[in-house]
């Protein structure tokens, strides 16, 4: 089953009156259950591609389908609903709500999706246990370490059982040991059948991902499958 189908995607930004092409015709297909790393130097278009895939931004040109649904032309509410139910985001800086507890952060997308109080509480507890934070559920985000915050962000991304998880430099703010724990968690997600796309500069991370898409100047330079881990 195809989760993402991107054809000839372009994205042009206007920067100080100048047109800057961040993506120049990227075509990409991602099947369900794939674990994919998007790599490339700064300014190659990695984050822009991730934002298009997650419906955070719209392509300037080309065709993009998420779970078989054309993204171009969707209204804001439709795109928001797509992000809520089909996509989970993991950000470099975690971006948790600092005033909420770990449990409440995980419950946030569930509440938005209309899940009842009891069910979302159970689901949040289950997800926090999955990422190894069952005992930190009632701690505010500000009381957690960087690695713990990223685990909560992962649990939040998984809350509505999305078809696709997108992670933007998920280990960028973490030390090596903590980053390794996050990568192990990603491996576990992959083994559990989650479709996972990770944007990274981290060669160590990219090296353990089965499929690597290397971007250069807004184009796919290489799209390769690892032969062995």
């Amino acid at each position: 089953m195809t989760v993402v189908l991107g054809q000839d995607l372009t994205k042009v930004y206007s920067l100080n009156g100048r047109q800057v092409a961040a993506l120049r015709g990227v075509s990409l297909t991602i099947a369900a259950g794939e674990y994919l790393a998007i790599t490339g130097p700064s300014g190659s278009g990695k984050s822009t591609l991730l934002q298009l895939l997650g419906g955070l931004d719209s392509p300037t040109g080309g065709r993009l389908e998420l779970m078989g649904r054309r993204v171009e032309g969707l209204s804001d509410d439709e795109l928001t609903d797509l992000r809520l139910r089909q996509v989970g985001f993991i950000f470099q800086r975690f971006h948790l709500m600092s005033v909420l507890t770990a449990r409440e952060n995980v419950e946030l997308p569930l509440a938005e999706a209309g899940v009842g109080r009891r069910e979302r509480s159970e689901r949040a507890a289950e997800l926090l246990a999955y990422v190894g934070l069952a005992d930190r559920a009632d701690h505010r985000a500000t009381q957690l370490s960087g690695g713990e915050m990223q685990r909560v962000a992962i649990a939040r991304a998984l809350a509505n059982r999305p078809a696709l998880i997108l992670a933007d430099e998920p280990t960028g703010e973490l030390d090596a040991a903590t980053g390794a724990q996050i990568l192990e968690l990603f491996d576990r997600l992959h083994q559990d059948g989650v479709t996972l796309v990770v944007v990274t500069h981290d060669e160590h991370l990219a090296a353990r991902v089965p499929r690597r898409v290397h971007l250069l100047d807004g184009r796919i330079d290489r799209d390769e499958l690892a032969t062995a881990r």
Partner: protein
Amino acid sequence: MTWALVVRSLFRHPVRTALVVAGIAVAAALLLDMVMLSGGMERSFSRMLLSRGFQIRLSPKGTLPFDTEAMIPAITPILDDLRADPDVERVGPVLATSLHVRVGDSLLTLVGYGVDPAGQGLYELEAGADLVPGDSTGLLVSEPAAAAAGWQIGDTIRLQGRLDPQSARAEAERVVTVRGVVRFLYDARGQRSVGADFRVMQRLGRFPDADPASMVMVKVRADDRVDSVAARIARTHRTVEVNSVAALVVQFRSRLVYFQQLSLILATISLVVGVLLVGTILTITVSERIGEFAVLRGIGVRRARVVRLVMAEGAVLTAAGAIGGVILGLATARYLDAILTSFPGLPAAISFFVPERTAIAKAAVAVFVAGVAASGYPAWLAARAPIAETLRADAE
């Protein structure tokens, strides 16, 4: 979840939030005070006039009741005519004059009211017994008069009228007995007043042969007949001024129109200050947290929910400010009222600030609605934040 996010977000900067709530409370207090002030005198005036249920006043031609020392002459035929009117339930003539009593070596000056015990609308009994019709030796005294003269119920007193200021000799005297202590409704604070039978007071006052009255109060049986009865009296007795209480309130209102306009302008200014306060602080808050709102949008929170979150913060701020404002407004109103009502000559029953539920509710609702409306712009800013661009800027 929404309320947890809203309340905890406000407590992220507790001092700032407290200062904003205090600012809104001050604006709300000023608004409430101005709302009470704009209609307070009119309401307390109307309440005072209607406190005994007399809806019509007759006064000397061209004057308002107690407006001047002018008298209505030959009052008896007018009273007889009014009492004969089937629409009239009760008639209460009043004569106000100066009286004196000797207390030790000094002469105490009093305001004397002549009343008809069968139809009085001038006082409320506080202690002792009321006058009864035909009681020509009874006297009612106000608390300040009793305190100044040291009178007790049952004391016998020699009242002096028409005193010659040169010789300090009275042309008329009357020995009376204190029957009761009353509160005269139109007295100023601390005014020393006494009340006696209308005919007794006529004999003690000026122009005893003119059969005078200062005012006549008329109680009409049915409220919906007041205007027609007033018109009929005015047609029949062209030498007197006839006003219904409603008409007097209108005249009173016309005298207060600038006062009311000033109150409304100040009330509007306080409301605008409240709006600016809420709008400014929430705009700053949203600007500081724009990344947070972009993340919320990114993870699938709808624009409408983001708008509700910001507006709920505005609502919580203004609700807290409005509650504080009501308490502060009532406290300052009481303090200001005590200052203003101590002006000499002003009836003690008149209040400048009348704390009515509707006025309080109006002010609180106005502040709340204005505060929530003021959060509309920052809410729009939060909801319209470009997600990708904001997250990119946040990551750099």
